[in-house]
């Protein structure tokens, strides 16, 4: 049984020019101990999807879903009291801006002890646990750091403290929203290693949100690609990078300088991402798609298993790299 199941999630915001569906048709499942990457360009709905799951969107947002189930519990139906017990403990989230997530007025130690809550621990035990957590996320001299204030920490150290706080509740699922985007590449490598190690050692599931294809390629087992508020492709990381099926995923990979090695000009995707109010009703990608045909311009393709394979889902009438599949089956 999946740890988390989301089916047909949508989020609508009221705007001065009418309701805006920031996210729609999101299907997503995460197993225990699994590492899922969610990639997409800015505004594609990655953060809104996860904030909806956590119940952290502003009250004017309308959230709809066919299923929103965590460990067999329907998150749509439970009381807000139960919800608070799940969210923040069993499901923890690291936010996009580490600096703004730590309270500047309190010491690191205080904030971690708060995150530990009661848990039947006395003061000394909570302090010991805080030191253990800081040590676990690779903070040198953890005892001395307890009395540090957030502004005394580097970006990488702040992110480690955030991760320690999130571990305090012993989560089954950790959602990390762009945890390394603000960091230097050597520090990013350290934090990604830390997240991978925690996921492996603790059997914790991890959803890593990023706009950086290389970061998911380096870390995730499975990848969900989002475009203009919708998931367009989901499959194992190896499969996606070797044989992307959705034309958008294919074009995105081609546009990477790493893949354009030897070429001077990089392949680009014509046009721009549709704005909030001009998203096509049919395939959202069709105005920019090389392979669009009449069906793409009239009907929205479903996010469906490809050729009946539940491990590869694509929202496209004309998926790419079919030849490779034929060749593979012939073997």
């Amino acid at each position, binding site marked *: 049984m999946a740890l988390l199941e989301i089916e047909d999630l949508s989020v609508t915001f009221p705007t001065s020019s009418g309701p805006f569906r920031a996210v729609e048709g999101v299907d997503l499942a995460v197993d225990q101990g699994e590492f899922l990457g969610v990639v997409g*360009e800015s505004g594609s709905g990655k953060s809104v999807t996860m904030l909806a799951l956590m119940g952290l969107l502003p009250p004017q947002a309308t959230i709809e879903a066919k299923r929103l189930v965590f460990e067999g519990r329907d998150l749509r139906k439970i009381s807000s009291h139960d919800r608070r017990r799940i969210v923040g403990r069993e499901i923890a989230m690291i936010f996009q801006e580490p600096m703004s997530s730590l309270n500047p007025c309190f010491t690191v130690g205080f904030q971690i002890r708060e995150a530990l809550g009661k848990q039947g621990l006395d003061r000394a035990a909570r302090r010991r646990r805080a030191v253990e957590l800081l040590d676990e996320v690779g903070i040198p001299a953890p005892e001395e750091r307890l009395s540090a204030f957030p502004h005394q920490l580097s970006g990488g150290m702040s992110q480690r403290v955030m991760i320690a706080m999130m571990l305090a509740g012993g989560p089954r699922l950790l959602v990390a929203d762009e945890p390394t985007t603000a960091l230097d590449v*050597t520090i990013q490598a350290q934090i990604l290693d830390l997240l991978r190690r925690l996921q492996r050692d603790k059997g914790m599931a991890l959803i890593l949100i990023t706009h950086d294809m290389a970061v998911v390629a380096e870390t995730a087992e499975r990848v969900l690609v989002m475009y203009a508020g919708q998931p367009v492709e989901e499959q194992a990381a190896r499969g996606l*990078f070797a044989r992307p099926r959705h034309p958008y995923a294919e074009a995105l990979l081609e546009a990477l300088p*790493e893949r354009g*090695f030897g070429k001077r000009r990089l392949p680009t995707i014509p046009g721009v991402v549709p704005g909030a109010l001009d998203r096509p009703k049919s395939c959202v990608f069709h105005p920019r798609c090389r392979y669009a045909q009449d069906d793409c311009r009239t009907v929205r393709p479903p996010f469906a298993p490809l050729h009946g394979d539940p491990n590869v889902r694509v929202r496209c009438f004309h998926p790419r790299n079919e030849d490779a599949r034929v060749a593979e089956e012939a073997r």
Partner: protein
Amino acid sequence: MTAVYRSQDAAVAAPLVEARDLKQHYTLKGGLFGEDRTLKAVDGVSFTLGRGETLAVVGESGCGKSTLARMLTLIEAPTSGDLLFEGRPAQDAMRDDPKATRGFVQMIFQNPYGSLNPRQNVASILAEPLVINTRMSGDERRRRVREMLAKVGLRPEHDVRYPHMFSGGQRQRIAVARALMLEPRVVIADEPVSALDISVQAQVINLLLDLQDEFGLAYVFISHDLSVVRHLARRLMVMYLGRVVEEGEGGVVFEDPAHPYTRALMAATPAVDPSARKERATVRGELPSPLNPPPGCPFHRRCRYARPDCKDRVPELRTVRGRKVACHYAENLEGEGAGTLRVAATA
């Protein structure tokens, strides 16, 4: 395209830009009892740049990239060292003909959102350098603005629009257009694509390459992204705590990085190929404070190859295997290939 700037006595062979031991030392006022402290943001950078060349400057935050850019664009005078434009001291050129000198070198900033004035329309953003630095008529300026918009792939009739009416990539195109209005010979680009999405990044990279081909522009391209740098630049300069640690042909440095820090950067750069995943040797520790840099080799506390004397002796740049490198032991780092940048085979 005719260059606005022509130096009178430039030797024919003089490079467009030559930097000799440029330093920028900031003095920070001490506290109540504290003494003034010196922050060596850039501590001795030298290079030459010829027509149509691209020099990439890479390194992590605070290593002095933007400070170097401000010196090269004459926004800040260096504490010491010489900056020559076509063989002539930049300060002299600036004193004799400030308008032409400003036209010689232009800058593109990182943030396409913050670097454009939201209250100015595109026509006036682009015309402004012409108003300040030339005696062009209004009609002539309007013609130039429309030509430039077409060059950077924007619709000339959109010159009446304001920055917020454009996407991030389009705004960066406007910033590129503005930098080119005075027909510079040299463009200093400080992280010009870092804030952009992948698909938009590819468009702006192509634009920079096309304009270089068309006008023979020379770029100093500042970035922390090694894959972008590898694509764009023939020459590479790696900085750490204000100092150059390695400099040479991109091909040489990427294939066989000789400085432990260059290796660490390459090992830390994720590859876009899940089947090539491997345990990486992550560099330990964090960047030291530039106010209190380690003695000896500034990298020694994080270096996996450090030997006892690295903390005592400052390594100077010297030539090893066809590039310059500032490491005492560049000839014999063990653990070969640990840091080679992994470039995915095209699928």
